[in-house]
């Protein structure tokens, strides 16, 4: 590879030709501030915060896009650089609604941090933004505030390049530019899948989840109501980040304790219904495999993926597992099985879920999700929202003594916790399907081929002489790639798709920041949690055996079909 030598702040450095100044500076240990830059996703040199001086150049260069050359002399800390960075921040601020104390990103805002780091003390310019501030609250999951938007294009890039949804773009030009859906419609009227990846990439408070914290506080305070809460697998390895813990630190026990202290009447686990999903979906797979049903079977746990499929690939509806997601299975059982068990009027049950996801808010409001006779899940809180409630209540999360989930929907296996990472549902399903089909015990429950952050993973599993071909995709861009392979003739028996990069550990409701390194650490936490479980196969879960004996009958039975399975709707792209 051709290399070039250059000087950055008098530090000699040798890097491959074509490297950007920003990357070369990183190598040299020199920090250049950035704002619109997102590695591999948004490298467009729009915000001009990363400007540097290059000897011989008449103007400053944007380090994030300018490639280095032999003998280049770069200076990152000169009067011109400092003045320009500050002025660019002032110009951005002049068009930004800086109501910081009440902003959802107060204290976790990249613009705020940069202003602090670069010593911006006054804004000399008056704004010229010509459009009216639009607050788009049309979807159940997302809020879009154009008043806060600084036009960095990160959301546009992630929606297009990573998710392949492309629901938003720059509309108009110059001072009139806004980032908006086609025809300036609300997000509800375009094929937005509400995955929330835009929220994770937004440096400011222009995109955020539609909160339901106050509704949940009200329900908890209402003595007439009985609040039941469930916690998704991926939340236990990420919520600690909001309280100074490391990504991937397992804080299941603290989370349970915190939820009790917030006042929830019953604290149970989505992991229980993840095990139940495996029983239903595993048997669905076995039935399709052995009785000649539509293959490949495709998983349906990720509501962002489900909505994407309905908009962009409705031809795959027959391939979709009819299983509801673990959240919705839990919701349906909370107001039927559980309410009956503790002799409670289901009307008084308020069912709340803690999810790493924004699309779950949308899923809970789908009209099909009322099989209990009520809305099965009343309120969905993201991991971030739960952290806000814990902070508001003044709970010292990190130092809480660990507590256990309540019965009868609190017990789970390692197979359930791995739902939180890409490949996990597939691995959990294989653990059960293998043993059910063959009647033998697996020598090792670990299916390493389906783990990790590679975009599309393929594996072949020998199930008693039958070669079962499986594939796993995470992020909707990779989902599209995989589905195109299927359309072009690639044959698989079983496919897992998760809407967000990394699976739920990288979901749109997770703590900010969420980047590749953090996803990796959370994923490690997930597999550690799996290994630490006494039971690692869904069909071994005693509470699962009990619910089939007491209530559901058998997997794919009548009651299961009524409460645990669903259907899909074809939707348009345009």
């Amino acid at each position, binding site marked *: 590879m051709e290399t070039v030598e250059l000087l950055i702040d008098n530090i000699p450095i040798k890097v491959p030709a074509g490297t950007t100044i920003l990357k070369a500076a990183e190598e040299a240990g020199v920090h250049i501030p950035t704002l619109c830059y997102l590695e591999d996703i948004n490298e467009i040199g729009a915000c001009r915060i990363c400007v540097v001086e290059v000897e011989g150049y008449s103007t400053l260069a944007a380090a994030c896009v300018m490639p280095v050359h032999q003998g280049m002399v770069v200076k990152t800390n000169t009067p011109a650089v400092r003045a320009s960075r500050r002025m660019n921040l002032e110009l951005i601020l002049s068009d930004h609604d800086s109501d910081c104390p009440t902003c959802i990103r107060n204290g976790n805002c990249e613009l705020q941090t940069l202003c602090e780091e670069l010593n911006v003390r006054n804004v000399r310019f008056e704004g010229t933004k010509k459009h009216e501030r639009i607050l788009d609250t049309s979807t159940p999951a997302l809020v879009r505030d154009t008043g806060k938007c600084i036009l960095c294009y990160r959301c546009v890039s992630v929606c*297009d390049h990573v998710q392949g949804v492309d*629901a938003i773009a720059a*509309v*108009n*030009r110059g001072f009139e530019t806004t980032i908006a859906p*086609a*025809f300036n419609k609300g997000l509800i009227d375009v094929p937005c899948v509400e995955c929330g990846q835009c929220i994770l990439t937004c440096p400011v408070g222009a995109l955020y989840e539609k909160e339901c914290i106050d509704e949940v506080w009200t329900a908890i305070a209402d003595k007439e109501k009985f609040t039941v809460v469930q916690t998704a697998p991926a939340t236990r390895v990420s919520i600690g980040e909001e309280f100074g813990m490391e990504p991937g630190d397992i804080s299941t026990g603290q989370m349970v304790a915190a939820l009790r202290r917030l006042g929830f009447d019953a604290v149970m686990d989505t992991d229980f219904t993840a095990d139940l999903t495996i029983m239903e979906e595993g048997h669905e797979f076995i039935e399709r495999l052995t009785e000649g049903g539509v293959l490949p079977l495709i998983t349906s746990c990720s509501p962002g993926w489900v909505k994407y499929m309905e908009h962009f690939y409705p031809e795959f509806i027959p391939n979709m597992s009819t299983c509801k997601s673990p959240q919705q299975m839990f919701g349906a059982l909370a107001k039927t099985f559980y309410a009956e068990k503790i002799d409670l009027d289901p009307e008084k049950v308020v069912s709340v879920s803690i999810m790493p996801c924004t699309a779950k808010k949308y899923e809970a409001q789908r009209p099909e999700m009322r099989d209990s006779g009520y809305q099965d899940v009343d309120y969905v809180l993201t991991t971030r929202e739960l952290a806000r409630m814990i902070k508001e209540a003044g709970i010292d999360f990190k130092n809480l003594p660990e507590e256990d989930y309540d019965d009868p929907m609190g017990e789970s296996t390692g197979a359930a916790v791995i739902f939180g990472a890409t490949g996990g549902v597939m691995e959990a399903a294989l653990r059960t399907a293998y043993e059910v089909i063959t009647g033998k015990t697996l020598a090792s429950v670990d299916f390493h081929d389906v783990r990790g952050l590679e975009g599309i993973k393929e594996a072949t599993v020998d199930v008693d002489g039958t070669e079962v071909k499986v594939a796993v995709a995470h992020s909707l861009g990779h989902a599209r790639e995989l589905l195109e392979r299927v359309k072009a003739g690639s044959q698989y028996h079983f496919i897992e798709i998760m809407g967000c990069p990394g699976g739920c550990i990288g979901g749109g409701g997770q703590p900010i920041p969420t980047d590749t390194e953090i996803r990796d650490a959370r994923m490690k936490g997930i597999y550690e949690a799996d290994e630490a479980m006494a039971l690692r196969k869904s069909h071994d879960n005693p509470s699962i055996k009990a619910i089939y004996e007491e209530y559901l009958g058998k997997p794919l039975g009548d009651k299961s079909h009524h409460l645990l399975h669903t259907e899909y709707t074809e939707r348009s*792209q*345009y």
Partner: protein
Amino acid sequence: MGGDCLHIVLQNPKSMVACTCFGLRMGDILRLMVLNLKSIYNIQRGGVLVEYKKLVDDYTSMPGGLIEAFHAIQNEHGYLPEAAINEAAEAFKISAAEAYGVATFYSMFSVKPRGKYVIRICRSAPCHVEGAQEVIAALEQELGICMGGTSNDGLFSLEFTECVGQCQERPVITINGEPYAGVTPGDVPGILNEIRNK
């Protein structure tokens, strides 16, 4: 909004009542209908989507063909209706968001219905110093509308343009692309009457 409503009304006249709820007066809707006689004819034949598709399909293999397709649609319909932008997005295999982004980026495209005659006033420096502002004031007063608006009779729309290369006599306006150089506020009533009498 106007375009959407028009399409709804044309498919179901009863929906006119609903459109008035969106803040459009009956008069607005009737005006939109007059403005779009050609579209009405096509929709009544059920053929407008087919026609958009036909206009677009000629350009799908051309690099940057979307712009050409938009020009073709606008030449036919006076503006880029929502259904046409969607049709183009589908033909070019891009999202509606991206297609709408392109449509709104270029000032020569309009996503709102416009008058039969689009009057553009040059806002570049030479015309500005020679009194473009006074010509604008005269046009606005004579037509009873502001820049960006369309006259009640559906005949005229007022828009800005950058330099059209006719700086020998200033200020310059164009009417449906025809330049009028050295225009004074006093010329405005005459120019408008000439067009009205066409």
